[in-house]
């Protein structure tokens, strides 16, 4: 089947390229347009945050990117090839930790490589390194119910990295955490990203979270989500918590916040 945007047409260097993708759910009450059409490019090694109101289709977008859902229109490309099924080179972190309760931390982290059938003893060492990286080296043998929510989420992040994906997809990974843990996790994720140099698509509805971590923020409208604004965040890296007080940071947050209040008459 000829595609209107063959791999050669994807922008050079872009890891991820979305071309006019849209998704409509068919429900018992008829078709429900959940997303798009929208186009987004994510450059190699870029950290892109997707910001949008609740129900605008952010999780739907992530499912398309991970190959779990097929868009009703348009195409998504990863590394030049179309995403038409779940792919090995993508790591996913859901909003909830989503760990296997009957496996300990190390086995949870190793789960992707076991399912992919590429397990080798080398991955065991890699898992231990990742567990150490997220600060859980004392807990490799513990079971999820013995960990706090924040620790579980860190396990999920380590699991998302075990098979060395080119692209890391994160769906509001810190939404369930308290403010303190959240801040700590944001710093940790930034450090991980700087160390590993992956492309990241980070879904959130927290404006400061997006502004703090991202190179670029894609703002979506309410359902069906379309791109209404793209914000380039020029803040110097690495960013510490003090950069949240920088006038530039405050200005970005302000600009983004105004975008939502204008859209939403309830807040006007």
């Amino acid at each position: 089947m000829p595609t209107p945007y063959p791999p050669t047409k994807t922008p050079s260097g872009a890891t991820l390229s979305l071309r006019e993708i849209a998704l409509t759910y068919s429900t018992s009450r008829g078709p429900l347009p959940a997303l798009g059409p929208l186009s987004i490019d994510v450059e190699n090694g870029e950290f892109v945050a997707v910001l949008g109101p609740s129900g605008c289709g952010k999780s739907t977008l992530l499912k398309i990117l991970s190959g779990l859902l097929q868009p009703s229109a348009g195409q998504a490309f990863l590394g030049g090839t179309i995403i038409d099924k779940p792919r090995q080179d993508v790591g996913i972190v859901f909003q909830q930790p989503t760990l296997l309760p009957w496996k300990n931390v190390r086995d949870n982290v190793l789960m992707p490589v076991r399912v992919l059938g590429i397990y080798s003893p080398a991955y065991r060492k890699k898992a231990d390194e990742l567990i150490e990286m997220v600060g859980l080296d004392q807990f490799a043998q513990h079971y999820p119910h013995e960990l706090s929510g924040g620790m579980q989420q860190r396990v999920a992040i380590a699991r998302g990295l075990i098979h060395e994906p080119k692209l890391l997809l994160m769906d509001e990974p810190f939404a369930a955490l308290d403010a303190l843990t959240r801040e700590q996790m944001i710093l940790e994720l930034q450090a991980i990203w700087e160390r590993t140099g992956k492309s990241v698509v980070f879904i959130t509805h927290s404006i400061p979270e997006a502004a703090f971590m991202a190179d670029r923020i894609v703002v979506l409208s309410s359902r069906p989500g379309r791109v209404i604004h793209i914000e380039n965040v020029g803040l110097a890296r690495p960013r510490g918590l003090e950069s949240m007080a920088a006038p530039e940071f405050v200005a970005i947050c302000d600009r983004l916040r105004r975008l939502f209040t204008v859209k939403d008459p309830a807040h006007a």
Partner: protein
Amino acid sequence: MRENALRNILLPLGVTALFIAAWHYSIIYFKVPNYLVPTPWAVLLSLKQGLIGGVLWPDIWATTSALVLGYVAGCSMALVLATLVSEFQLLNRAIYPLVVAFQSVPKVALAPLIIVWFGFELQSKVVMVALICFFPCFVNAVVGFRSCNPNLIDLYRAFGASRMQILFSVKWPSALSTIFAGLEISIVLALLGAVVAELVASRRGLGHVIEASTVDFNVAMIFACVIVLAAIGVISTQLIMWLRRRIAFWDHQTTTTIVT
């Protein structure tokens, strides 16, 4: 901790002692004839005759073998069918409503029919037990499979897991604690089913001994059988709960009791 354990053991023991004393003195005080209510001493003698004298062992064996065979058969059929129903939507639509409808039928009412079909020996008892075990086990397993975290399934799909892999690596372990809840209900009902089948018609088993003892007014023996049955019930329930703690160790609800 220690004080707690002491209270957990001493308190029920004290209540039991009080109960036996009340039992003993009421018989004397109200002059209850021995063929209606036996003295605790007579029950103890019957127990001794049955367990140490060995009179009851063949019947205990008959009841427990029917219990175990029927339980294993009924529960495994329930688990297999529940797995199929949760995997195949069509089967779910076809079977699940029927099972739920049939669940409300009092299965013990079918005992005479089962005896007509399967005879007076072990088979009819096993069938009765299996039938009675099936429903709670099936319904709990289906609920367990349904309540599996969809994100976990998505996660497995994202890594290209096959349907079989998802079934055995995600759905089954997720359903385990609910399945065990069903197994705990089933074991209690299973004993009931075995005794009912024996009461209605059988030449062996504790239910049969109870039945035969009513004929010659041996109430002490009836009491002894009930005590043995209670012991079998407690032991088998504890066994299932122990298995649950071993196998579904991550589940925090292991200590909750189930109301049937």
